[in-house]
């Protein structure tokens, strides 16, 4: 079973990376990029077959390790 976890900064939290990318795109001549935010994508290969269990596990993994819930949100997708 494959899972995809995306971790993004909460609203209002400064994103220096996004800011730098936005600046670089601008100086490369791309107009009309109003905002850029950078997040993480974590792809997992799970050996179980129980989707409900997997979702619960993934949530637990996010809370415990994958996301820093003080400043980040996460989203889980099973694929």
């Amino acid at each position, binding site marked *: 079973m494959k899972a995809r976890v995306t971790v993004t900064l909460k609203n209002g939290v400064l994103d220096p990376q996004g800011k*730098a990318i936005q600046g670089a795109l601008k100086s490369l001549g791309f107009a009309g990029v109003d905002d850029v935010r950078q997040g993480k994508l974590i792809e997992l290969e799970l050996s179980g077959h129980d989707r409900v269990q997997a979702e619960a596990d993934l949530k637990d993994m996010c809370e415990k390790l994958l996301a820093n819930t003080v400043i980040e949100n996460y989203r889980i997708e099973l694929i």
Partner: protein
Amino acid sequence: MKSAVLVFPGINRERDLARAFHEVSGVAPHMVWHTETELPDVDVVAIPGGFSYGDYLRCGAIAARSPIIEAVRRHADRGGYVLGICNGFQIVTEIGLLPGALMRNASLKFVCKEVRLRVDNASTAFTSAYAPGQVIRCPIAHGEGNYFADAETLARLEGEGRVAFRYCDEAGETTDAANPNGSIHSIAGILNERGNVLGMMPHPENLIEALQGGIDGRGLFESLARVA
């Protein structure tokens, strides 16, 4: 030796590098701002360490798209020397002047310490002051120095003697314990095909005076001074 040191926003070892050139050649390098489109008339263009653009997105990625880069490429095409150290190495690979890429250290931690390097090719413009196989001390300071290249590239690098420096132990052995960042084949520095572009993660510029604890890094600058 006439040299230029490039400066990008966020670069922070430009003074260290300029000092090394100055110490060894007696001439202060030109400091060149990234928005320039021409280089001064120099033999060596050096790209220093640091965190250009904060190392955001990928190390060296944003700096590699700066206006000055085209001039660097032309300089290299003409056979001029290009030296990329640390962030400079990352930038030079992002430009494509050297193959492969630098990934996060296997430990995922920034590491600053003194390591040993083995000079695997001492017949280059950058290393001729060293003896072949010589083991030198050299500081490192990076979080993403884990060199990676695909099998084919690696075979070419090895086959053509383009690995200039490798991490090793005191006896010159390339062991896992002596590899500070997980680099493939313990690679610390590589050359381009023509031998006029060197990229390396370690900082020879921080070990050129007895006060710094040793002078093993001088050889690199002295080698360049011989040919330029």
